[in-house]
C-alpha cells in the first residue's frame, strides 16, 4: 500500500513540473492564439539562469528561492522583448503564422544557450533544506517532491485569483472567449497581449528554474518538454488553466503506474491519452467550443486559374528545371531531388491546410508510411521499385483514411493535435516494433533499381512523380471537389445548408493529401537508400508546416516557394558555425517582411511595381 502511495506522490510531483510549463502555454494560446514553439526555450533558459544565479549567490535556502524567482522574472522580460519586437508585428497574419516566428526564436535560443553556457550538461544544486527524503508509510519520499506537490496547486490558486479577482484577469478571460468583442469594447489589445505573454513566459521560466534540483540543465531541455506541454494543454482544453493541471496530474500519475506494468509505454502514453480524450471530448476536458469570432478575420481570396502569361512563365521554369541535370553537377541534382520531395510534401500539406482548412501537426505520418511501405515492399516482399511507387502511396492513403476518420470530427488546433497524436503513436510503433520495422536502426539498402541508380535517371523519375503529384493536387484544387472543400473551409454552416456532407469531403481531402505525402515519402526512401523513424517524427511534420506557412498559405504557389527556399537555405546555412542563429534570423526577417508568406510578399511587391509603373505612364 505504502508503495503505491509513494508512486502516487512521485506522479504528483511530476505533474506540478509539467503543469507550470503547460499553464503558461495555455494562457498564451488562449488570449493571443499563438502556438508558441519557443515555450520550451523559455523553460530551458529559466533553468540555465536559475543554475547560474543559485550557484553564484550561494545564500542557502533564501538564495535558492530568490534565484528561482529572479530567473523566472528575467525570462518574463525576455518574453516581453520577443512579444514587442516580433510577435506584435504579425498578429494580423493568417492563423498559426506566428508559430513560424516562434520557431525562428527557438533556433536562436538553441545557439545562444550553447554559446553562453557551453555544451556540457550542468547539475544544479539541490534545494537547501529540502535535499533529503522523508519516510511516509515506510517509503522514502524526497522532500523537494513534497514541495513541488504543494507548489503546483499554489500556482494554480494564484492564477485563479489573478483571473477572478483582478480587472486584468477579467479582461484576459474575456479575450480568451472572444477577443474581437474585447477589442470592440475599447480594451487596449497590445497591452493585454504583452502582459499575457510575459505571464506565460514567467511561468515557463519558473517551471524551468524549479527543475534544477531534479534534472540536469541541458541543451535538450527545450525540445524534450515542448511536445508533452502541448499535449497537456490540449487534453485540459486550450486556454483552461485548471484543465492543464488536471491533465498534468492525469498523465503523470498514469505514467508512474503504467511503467510498473508495461515499462515501454512511456514514449507514447501522453499521445494515446490525448487521442482518447479528443475522440471522446473534441475540445479537451475543460475546453469549450471557441466563439466564431477570433477565427480568420479576412475571408480568403478565391483561387484563380492562371493567366496565359503565368502559364508561359511556369512552363519555361519547368523546362529549365527539367534540363538542369544536363548543366549542373551530380550533387546539385541530388539536392534538387530533395527540393522536389520537400515541395511535394509541402504541397500535400498545403492541400490539407490551405484548401481543406485542416491544420496538421502530424503530416509526416503519411510521408513516413509511404517511406516505410516502400522500404518494406522492396526489402521484405521483394516487389520491384516501379510497382512500389504506385503501391506505397496507396498504403499511406489507407493510413490517412483510417486516422482521417477520427481527425475530421474535430476542428482547428484540436484537429491539428489529433493528427500529431496519430503521428506520434505511429512513430512509437515504428520505433518499438523492432522485428518488423527495424526500430530506430531503420531499414537500409532501399536503393533504386539498377536502371535508375544514376543520379540523373533518378532525378527524372523523381521529376515525373513529384511534378505529376503537384499537378494532380492543383487539378484537384480547381475541381468541383476542390471548390466544395474550400466552401467548407470558409463556412461549414453554409456549406452544410446547401446539402454538402462536410465531414465526408474533408475526410476524402485528408486521404488524398495523405496519399500524396506518401508518394513524397516513397521518392524520399529511394533517394536516401534508408528509412528511419525520423521520417515520421515531429521534426519532419514541423518542417512541412514551416515550409507551407513561410511560403504563404493563401497561394497555391506558396508551398512550392516555401519548400524551395527552406531546403536551399538549410543546405547552405548548415555549413556555417552557429548556423541555427543565422537560420533563425533569416526566418524572422522573412516573417517580418512578409507576414502573409513569401508568395504574399511577392504579390505585394509586383502590385507595387505595377502601381508605380502606372503612375509613371499616367
Amino acid at each position, binding site marked *: 500500500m505504502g*508503495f503505491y502511495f509513494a508512486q502516487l506522490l512521485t506522479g504528483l510531483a511530476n505533474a506540478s513540473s509539467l503543469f507550470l510549463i503547460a499553464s503558461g502555454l495555455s494562457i498564451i494560446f488562449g488570449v493571443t492564439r499563438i502556438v508558441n514553439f519557443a515555450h520550451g526555450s523559455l523553460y530551458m533558459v529559466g533553468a540555465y539562469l536559475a543554475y547560474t544565479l543559485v550557484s553564484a549567490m550561494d545564500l542557502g535556502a533564501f538564495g535558492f528561492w530568490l534565484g528561482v524567482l529572479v530567473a523566472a522574472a528575467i525570462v518574463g522580460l525576455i518574453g516581453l522583448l520577443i512579444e514587442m519586437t516580433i510577435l506584435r508585428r504579425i498578429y494580423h497574419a493568417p492563423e498559426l503564422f506566428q508559430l513560424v516566428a516562434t520557431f525562428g526564436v527557438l533556433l536562436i535560443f538553441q545557439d545562444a544557450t550553447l554559446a553562453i553556457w557551453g555544451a556540457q*550538461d550542468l547539475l544544479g544544486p539541490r534545494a537547501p533544506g529540502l535535499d533529503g527524503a522523508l519516510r511516509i508509510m515506510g517509503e522514502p519520499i524526497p522532500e523537494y517532491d513534497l514541495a513541488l506537490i504543494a507548489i503546483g496547486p499554489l500556482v494554480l490558486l494564484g492564477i485563479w485569483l489573478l483571473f477572478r479577482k483582478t480587472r486584468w484577469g477579467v479582461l484576459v478571460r474575456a479575450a480568451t472567449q472572444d477577443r474581437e468583442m474585447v477589442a470592440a469594447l475599447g480594451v487596449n489589445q497590445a497591452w493585454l497581449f504583452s502582459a499575457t505573454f510575459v505571464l506565460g513566459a514567467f511561468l515557463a521560466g519558473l517551471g524551468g528554474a524549479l527543475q534544477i534540483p531534479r*534534472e540536469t540543465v541541458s541543451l535538450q531541455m527545450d525540445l524534450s518538454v515542448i511536445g508533452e506541454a502541448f499535449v497537456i494543454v490540449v487534453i485540459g482544453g486550450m486556454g483552461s488553466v485548471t484543465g492543464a493541471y488536471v491533465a498534468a496530474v492525469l498523465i503523470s500519475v498514469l505514467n*508512474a503506474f503504467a511503467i510498473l506494468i508495461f*515499462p515501454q509505454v*512511456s514514449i507514447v502514453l501522453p499521445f494515446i491519452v490525448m487521442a482518447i480524450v479528443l475522440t471522446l471530448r473534441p475540445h479537451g476536458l475543460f475546453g469549450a467550443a471557441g466563439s466564431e469570432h477570433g477565427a480568420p478575420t479576412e475571408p480568403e481570396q478565391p483561387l484563380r486559374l492562371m493567366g496565359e502569361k503565368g502559364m508561359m512563365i511556369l512552363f519555361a521554369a519547368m523546362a529549365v528545371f527539367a534540363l538542369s541535370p544536363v548543366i549542373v553537377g551530380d550533387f546539385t541534382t541530388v539536392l534538387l531531388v530533395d527540393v522536389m520531395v520537400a515541395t511535394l510534401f509541402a504541397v500535400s500539406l498545403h492541400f490539407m491546410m490551405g484548401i481543406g482548412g485542416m491544420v496538421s501537426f502530424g503530416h509526416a505520418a503519411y510521408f513516413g508510411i509511404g517511406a516505410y511501405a516502400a522500404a518494406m515492399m522492396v526489402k521484405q516482399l521483394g516487389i520491384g521499385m516501379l510497382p512500389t511507387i504506385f503501391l506505397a502511396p496507396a498504403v499511406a492513403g489507407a493510413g490517412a483514411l483510417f486516422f482521417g476518420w477520427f481527425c475530421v470530427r474535430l476542428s482547428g488546433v484540436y484537429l491539428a493535435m489529433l493528427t500529431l497524436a496519430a503521428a506520434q503513436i505511429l512513430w512509437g510503433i515504428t520505433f*518499438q516494433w523492432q522485428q518488423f520495422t527495424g526500430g530506430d536502426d531503420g531499414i537500409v539498402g532501399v536503393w533504386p533499381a539498377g536502371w535508375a541508380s544514376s543520379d540523373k535517371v533518378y532525378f527524372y523519375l523523381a521529376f515525373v512523380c513529384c511534378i505529376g503529384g503537384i499537378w494532380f493536387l492543383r487539378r484537384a484544387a480547381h475541381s468541383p471537389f476542390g471548390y466544395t472543400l474550400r466552401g467548407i473551409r470558409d463556412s461549414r454552416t453554409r456549406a452544410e445548408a446547401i446539402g454538402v456532407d462536410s465531414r465526408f469531403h474533408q475526410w476524402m481531402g485528408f486521404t488524398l493529401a495523405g496519399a500524396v505525402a506518401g508518394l513524397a515519402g516513397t521518392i524520399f526512401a529511394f533517394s536516401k537508400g534508408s528509412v528511419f523513424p525520423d521520417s515520421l517524427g515531429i521534426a519532419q511534420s514541423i518542417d512541412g508546416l514551416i515550409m507551407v506557412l513561410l511560403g504563404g498559405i493563401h497561394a497555391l504557389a506558396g508551398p512550392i516557394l516555401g519548400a524551395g527556399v527552406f531546403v536551399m537555405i538549410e543546405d547552405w546555412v548548415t555549413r556555417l558555425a552557429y548556423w541555427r542563429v543565422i537560420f533563425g534570423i533569416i526566418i524572422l526577417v522573412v516573417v517580418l517582411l512578409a507576414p502573409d508568406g513569401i508568395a504574399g510578399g511577392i504579390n505585394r511587391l509586383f502590385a507595387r511595381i505595377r502601381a508605380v509603373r502606372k503612375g509613371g505612364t499616367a
Partner: protein
Amino acid sequence: MNMRRILLGAIASLPLLGLTPGMALAAEDPILLGEINSYTRLPAFTEPYKKGWQLAVEQVNAEGGIDGRMLEVISRDDTGDPATAIRIAEEMVTKDGVTLLFGTFLSNIGLAVADFAKQKQVLFLASEPLTDALVWSKGNKYTYRLRPSTHMQAAMLAEQAAKLDAVKWATVAPNYAYGQDAVKAFKAELTRLRPDVEFVEEQWPPVFKIDAGSTVRALEAAKPDAIYNVTFGGDLPKFVREGSLRFLFEDRPVVSLLTGEPEYLLPLGDETPEGWIVTGYPPAAIETEEHVAFAKAYMDKFGEEPRTGSIVGYNSILAIAAALRKAGSTETEALLEAMEGLQVESSPTGPFMFRAADHQSTMGAYVGKTALVDGKPTMVDWVYADGADYLPSEEEAAKLRPAE
C-alpha cells in the same frame, strides 16, 4: 567564326584539363577526408571529438603528411538527421571528391552512412556509433568501426558483474536500439558466465525523458541484488539523484555502461556515486608514454583535459593515416585492402587493429570504479580492457554478417 574556334579549341583541350593538373598536383594536393557528425545535436560529445581529430590532423601534417600530401578534413554538421547526413555524404563524394568518409555518433546515422558507402563504393570509418548492427547484421565491405561496440563494453562489464555475489538483477536502459542491445548483450554474457543469475525487473524510460522518480521506485519494488544501468547523458544525473534520495543504491552494487566517460561522469560533480563498476576513460590517470604525450598536446592546444570523444577523434585520424600509408594510394580498393587487418601500432590507448572478418577495431575501453578524488569525479582501480578479448572469434563474427 572566331567564337566558334575558341569554343572548339576549348572543347578539344578538355581532356587535357583532366590530365595535367592531376599529374602536376599529385605531390602537393591535399588528401581530402569527409567528416560528418552531430555537432549541433550533441555538442557535449562531439566538440571534444572534433578537437581530437583536429589535433591528430595537425600532428600528421606537421610530420610531413602522408608521403608529402597533407590531410585536409571537410567537416559538416548532420543536424542529427540521417537524411541530411546522406545528402552531405553525397556532396562530399560527388562534388568535393573526398577519399573516404569518417565520423558519425548516432547509431541510425552511422547505419545510414554505412549503407550509402556501400552503394557509392567509398570507404567509411564509423568513429563513434556503438550499434552492433553496424559491423554484424548490417555490416558491409566498405564500413569499418573504431570505437568498442555495445557488445564489447557490455561484455567487459558482465565479466566484472559475474564476480559479484548478486543473483537477482534489475536493468534500466533507454528505450531505443542502443539500450536494447546493451541489455541483451549483458544478459547473454552474464548468464553464460553465471548460469545462476536471474533478471527480475527491467525498466525502459524514453531516451532523455526519464521519469526518474517513478523508474527508481519500480526498480526498488523488485528488490534486486544488483542493478545494471545503461542510461546516460541528461538521464543519468536524474537517475543518480532520485536513486540516492530513495536509497536505491544502498548496499546494492551498480554496474553501469559508459558512466566512466568524462562526458557523462563530470556533470555528476560531487554527487558521483562511489563504487559503481563502469566502462569509461580516466584521462588524468593513464601514464603510458603515448597517452601522456597526447594529453599534454591536447591540453596545450585546447586548455582542457581530453575526453572520450577526443580519444575517438584522435584515433580515427591515426587509423586513417595508417591505412593511407599502408595502401600507398587514395583509391578505394587499395584502401579497403589496407584496412583488412590494419595494425595501428601506437595510440594513446595502446595498439589496436581492424579485424578482417567483421571490420571491428580492437580498441578497448577502461573498466573501473567511480569515485570522488579531491572532490572531482573520476575512475579508480581501473584496468584497460583490450577490445580483442571481448569479441567473438573472427569465424563466429563472420557468420553474423550478411553474405556479400
